[in-house]
């Protein structure tokens, strides 16, 4: 099949005009133009937050944002990347935090300077409702804050726009960790299994398996009982060969 004739479009990288093929991501367009990334490029998959980009369009007052690796370059985009923005991370002794909102207030008192300008939510390329998350934290609702801020990839764009000069993504990270480790219900089954492992309860079983010949272990593999896809946590296997009695329910 003939390759379709690619249309070239103009883009302005930090004010300088380049012609790039239509349809490329901003990232690939910049590479096409001749930039080799050191900063501003990480996962190339929309999750690491290295490639935050700010742009404008002609005849439009608005500031737009994008992840360079995820967004197609458009004609006449006027863009720059913001690979880094200073944001103070305040160290804390996580183990000693009490799991209360005051943990966050003490470390980041500047969050109370938020004026609800919403510049943060508007710039966020992941659609995190940053202003609302800060509001949840102010009113002590850490669980809500943690889930609403779950998609944050810590690109720093919100922080670059903040009137309160608050490092929102560090604040939100702390909220998530406080929720995950101190407020969410603990997994008892996991603690029990971790304990069993530390006590060496599976050593004998694993040593036996490890000393098997390939033929023997193949047999175990082929004959093992498979949990049905939709079984759920209550499922009871018929075959308890490699289970430990005391943990059976």
């Amino acid at each position, binding site marked *: *099949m003939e*390759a*379709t004739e690619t249309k070239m479009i103009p883009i302005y990288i930090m004010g300088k005009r380049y012609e790039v093929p239509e*349809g*490329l*991501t901003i990232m*690939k367009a910049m*590479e*096409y*133009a*001749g*930039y*080799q*990334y*050191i*900063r501003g*490029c*990480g*996962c*190339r*998959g929309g*999750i*690491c937050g*290295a490639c935050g980009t700010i742009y404008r369009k002609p005849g439009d007052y608005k500031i737009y944002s994008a992840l360079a690796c995820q967004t*197609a370059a458009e004609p006449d985009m006027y863009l720059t990347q913001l690979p880094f923005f200073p944001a103070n991370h305040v*160290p804390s002794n*996580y183990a000693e935090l009490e799991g209360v909102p005051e943990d966050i207030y003490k470390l980041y008192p500047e969050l109370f300077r938020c004026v609800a300008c919403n510049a943060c939510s508007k710039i966020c390329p992941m659609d995190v409702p940053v202003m609302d998350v800060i509001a949840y934290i102010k009113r002590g609702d850490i669980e809500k804050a943690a889930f609403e801020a*779950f*998609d944050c990839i810590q690109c720093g764009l919100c922080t670059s726009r903040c009137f309160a000069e608050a490092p929102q993504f560090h604040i939100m990270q702390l909220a*998530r960790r406080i929720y*995950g*480790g101190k407020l*969410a*219900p*603990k*997994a*008892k*089954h*996991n603690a029990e*299994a971790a304990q069993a*492992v530390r006590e060496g309860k*599976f050593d004998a*079983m*694993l040593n036996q*398996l*490890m000393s098997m010949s*390939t033929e023997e272990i*193949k047999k*175990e*593999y082929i004959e*093992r009982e*498979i*949990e049905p*896809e939709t079984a759920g*946590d209550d*499922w009871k296997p018929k075959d308890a060969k*490699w*289970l430990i009695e005391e943990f*059976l*329910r």
Partner: protein
Amino acid sequence: MGYPESLKNLIKKIEETRPDRVEKKKAGIEIPAMTLDERATLLEAHHPDCIPGTRRELKVGPSQGYAVAHEFADLLESKSRVDPDKVDLSQIDYETDVLVIGGGGAGTSAALLAQENGAKVILTTKLRHGDANTMMAEGGIQAADKLWKDSPGYHYIDTLGGGHFSNVPELAYRLVNDAPDVLHWLENLGMMFWKKPDGTMDTLPAAGFCRSRLHFAGDITGAEIMRVVRDEARNREEDITVLEFSPVIELILNENGQCAGALIYNMETEEYSIIRAKATIVATGGSGRLHIQNFVTTNHYGATADGIVMTYRAGLKLKFLHTLQYHPTGCVFPEQLEGLLITEKFRAAGSHVLNVDGEQFVYEREPRDVEAAAYIKEANERGKAVPRPTGGWGIWLDSPMLELIYGEGYIKREFPGKCKQFGRHGIDISKEPMIVYPTLHYQNGGVEFKETGETDIPGLFMAGEVGGGIHGENRLMGNSLLDILVFGRIAGANAAIYAKEKAQDGKMSLAHVNAYNKEVEEAGIETEVVSPMLLPNYIEKKVRDRQHSSHYVGNIR
């Protein structure tokens, strides 16, 4: 935006065959799955690992004679980026107890455990801390922690089965045994596992496992792990110094044959510096950006096999590096989404896999490697794959048929993320199929190391995707996030102990690099390549051809 006319015309063929295919599907009539023998024949003929002429035996180094992909061999049979004689090793820039190379999940967990065991740590990494494959893992992490129906024993059996029984048993033992504890550790660090209201962790079944034990945090499990451990490392900044954009170029040994640190390179100022360390941990991750056989990849920008190169030069052997994991359904169109993983859930739900004529050529639920080989056969041997506008081949994945089977709205409900991603580019995957092709996903093997995190070089430890043996010839989904944390923690703790108890002072040396360079020369290898590669170069060829001053000319490059 959307599919170009040429592809729209091809989609018509799919729409023609669709009603009949859907009828058959509803009636339970499937095209036959392959027998074990058929699978083996297909794999041998068409799996990228097996294609003749794509590998060659190494002419130099500790694994001389071992055949690896040309792209690996090109890097291994090359010279160092630096002339060791120009480096003044008496000028130490940084001193530390433990040096961790790589800021992914393996490296960061190693740094935390080394610190907890009393070491001062420097973590040096190529990109930003956390710009790593770990960040990209979506699916989840395996651990047998529901002991009423599961045990590390079953996890062990599954893991060996997945690895075609070639795994190093001691490594697999540690992997499965330490798994529950790793999750416990993550929970206590504040990771947001998805849970039931009573705290029971949600788990999912996954291909190749006999129990539902894939734990997750939304569909960004790796990112959640990465940002939690990274935040914790930042909390310990007094003991853990992080150097970003400073890849290691070579390891430094000492006169006692111990690893004594590394030579790092500031990619921005182009300056080299020397780190002296009592113990060193290599955690540099994988190699997708080598684009083996020109495959696109899911990997991050810095996955360029640097750790393999530097440790190989220092004398470590390779292990299972001949096998790579190709994910059958990588997105290849639109170009912006190239490399994006299309979840296995589409095939599990019954999306047909079709060639350019809209015909089925393989059952959609074969294992990953078999599925991938079948697509490649359709392209290379039968010439019936879908030609991509930007060159290369693709295979149709018929997502719209799921709407006919499960009812309108199914795709939007079950695949909201993918709908959004394609929607941005004007493709509605509930109405139009996707184009997929195998994508380079994971480095099953790597460099040889032990279950204690040690290697054959005293003072040199290893963890993560760079190491080989845990997964044998094939890794199962969710076992990799697990392995990087299990062995990251072990390597970190043992490196700290080594730094305290076993490290000796000794004159630092890069003699091994000189020796290697000489070996390359003596083997008659003529090459322009220098390694490690650090970053791929995606600059347009036309521009590259005009970059006449590739290095300093006058005052500026």
